[in-house]
């Protein structure tokens, strides 16, 4: 065995003189398939998502800015946007509390049938919206299981904004539960015990220590539920009643415009709805950022 006590100095002449080392990349691609997989991904996304959305964004301007303004400043459109966003907001708010309680019960307590309840939380994700829609409508109609309880009081639920709210509560529940549940399940027990050793009652610990630390997760769940509610169609359309100015949601108005072949109008309303939704989400994200700055994330 030869021993080289010093590093081999300089270049030892080797057979392939004109050899140039391959171009340097920061991360060599050892694994194959980059071109193929990126090609498939980009092509598919372009055809299925980007091109159609470009068509949507390009469409409203057919009759100029005035045309767009005229469409979305139509009182009927404004009424529908107001209805859609307020019912979505209220439903998400109610779910914030209901979802927190359900998540709390599912993570904190042991009881028979817990697995079943846990699985059922996902039902609104799994149940086709049309099924939910017709079922909720028949339940809350004046002659339905629930509607008949309220009818004598003069309270109508189906075919009113209240019905829309009920449907959006159904749709939104799992978003809050599934956002909060993992955070709650992994909440450090020692933090809670520390609060107890400092003299806090269980209620104080819950309200001052645990719930605040859930704020980011709650906010995430809230924004998901809200975004879903704004665009929701199937589960709402049956129970809504669809009366212009009263119980007509924006997605329905889009469908109506399309059926009238007013593509530009439909697109204008859709873009307005999307913009409002993205603005709301931006607001939530900003709030989220603020929370995490305070070290609660």
């Amino acid at each position: 065995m030869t021993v080289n006590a010093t590093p081999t100095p300089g270049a030892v002449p080797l057979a392939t003189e004109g050899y140039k080392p391959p171009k340097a990349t920061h991360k060599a691609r050892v694994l194959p398939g980059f071109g193929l997989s990126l090609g498939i991904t980009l092509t598919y996304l372009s055809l299925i998502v980007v091109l159609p959305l470009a068509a949507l964004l390009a469409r409203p301007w057919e009759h100029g800015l005035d045309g767009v303004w005229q469409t979305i400043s139509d009182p009927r459109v404004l009424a529908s946007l107001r209805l859609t966003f307020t019912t979505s907001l209220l439903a998400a708010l109610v779910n914030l509390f209901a979802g927190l309680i359900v998540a709390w019960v599912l993570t904190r307590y042991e009881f028979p049938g817990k697995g079943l309840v846990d699985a059922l939380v996902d039902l609104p994700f799994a149940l086709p919206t049309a099924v939910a829609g017709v079922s909720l409508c028949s339940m809350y109609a004046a002659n339905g299981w629930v509607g008949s309880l309220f009818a004598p009081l003069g309270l109508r639920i189906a075919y009113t904004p209240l019905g829309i709210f009920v449907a959006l509560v159904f749709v939104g529940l799992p978003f809050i539960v599934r956002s909060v549940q993992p955070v709650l399940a992994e909440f450090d027990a020692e933090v809670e015990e520390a609060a107890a050793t400092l003299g806090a009652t269980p209620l104080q610990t819950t309200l001052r220590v645990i719930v605040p630390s859930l704020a980011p997760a709650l906010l995430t769940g809230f924004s998901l539920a809200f975004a879903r509610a704004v665009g929701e169609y199937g589960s709402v359309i049956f129970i809504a009643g669809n009366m212009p100015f009263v119980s007509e949601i924006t997605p329905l108005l889009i469908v109506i415009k399309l059926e009238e072949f007013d593509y530009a109008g439909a697109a204008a309303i859709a873009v307005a709805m999307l913009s409002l939704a993205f603005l709301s989400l931006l607001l939530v994200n900003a709030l989220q950022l603020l929370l995490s700055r305070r070290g609660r994330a």
Partner: protein
Amino acid sequence: MRARAPERPKTPAAFLLMALAAVWMALVIVLPLVNVLAEAFKQGVQPYLSAIVQPDALSAIRLTLTVAAIAVPLNAVFGIAAAWCVTRFDFAGKGLLLSVLDLPFTISPVISGMVWVLLFGAHGWFASVLEASNIKIIYALPGLVIATVLVTLPFVARELIPLMQDQGTDEEIAAVTLGASGWDVFFRVTLPNIKWALTYGVLLCTARAMGEFGAVSVVSGHIRGLTNTLPLHIEVLYNEYDSVGAFGAATLLAGLALVTLVLKTLLEWRFGDELAANRRH
């Protein structure tokens, strides 16, 4: 860090919370589900059975299955390709790509349907081309398929990306140093490691594809026996006050939802550690 183990409820507050949760779950979730069955069997078993075997219902079932059978494999292949390039390579614009990938989850299903009308509808960008070549997309099967593809696009990719990110590339790189070809790496190392997450994603994708309403409603035209999928069939019957027919069809979709939930729960229970850590949507 140690998380608190769930315990049997002892305090009055605990029982109060459990009661609240139980009432809420019963009212919001369980009752609508039970109501579907009650309405479907309102007039007995016979009318129910005849409702679900009427020709329009059968053709709606067939169409629903056809649409899913085309849309789901497309999105599965796409999901694998997207997860592979996103988790295995670094490239500029990856963040943007991921945002675009998530878009179908954030836009209204109605919009996911209408964009196709804007492209291929009577006054769409490609209307003249389609008319000249006599191809029908809107109010026909292709429209139903592409609308479904758009709505369900992220399901498989979203399931695979966090998992493959988590698993890293060590095993695949080891396979390369042992002389494996690209396809060997994928089929012998990657695929076995992601098979349950893939199954999970495909399951959710299928359930959504078969149950989608808003997007397909826009592109379908509601032609009975031709372009009505099962959810649209329910709508038509319900609007015609055929309650038993509508709810009969609804039981089929509700059954599908329950089967999905059972399979999903089974997968989470049995292969939880082989699914993505963050598997909730």
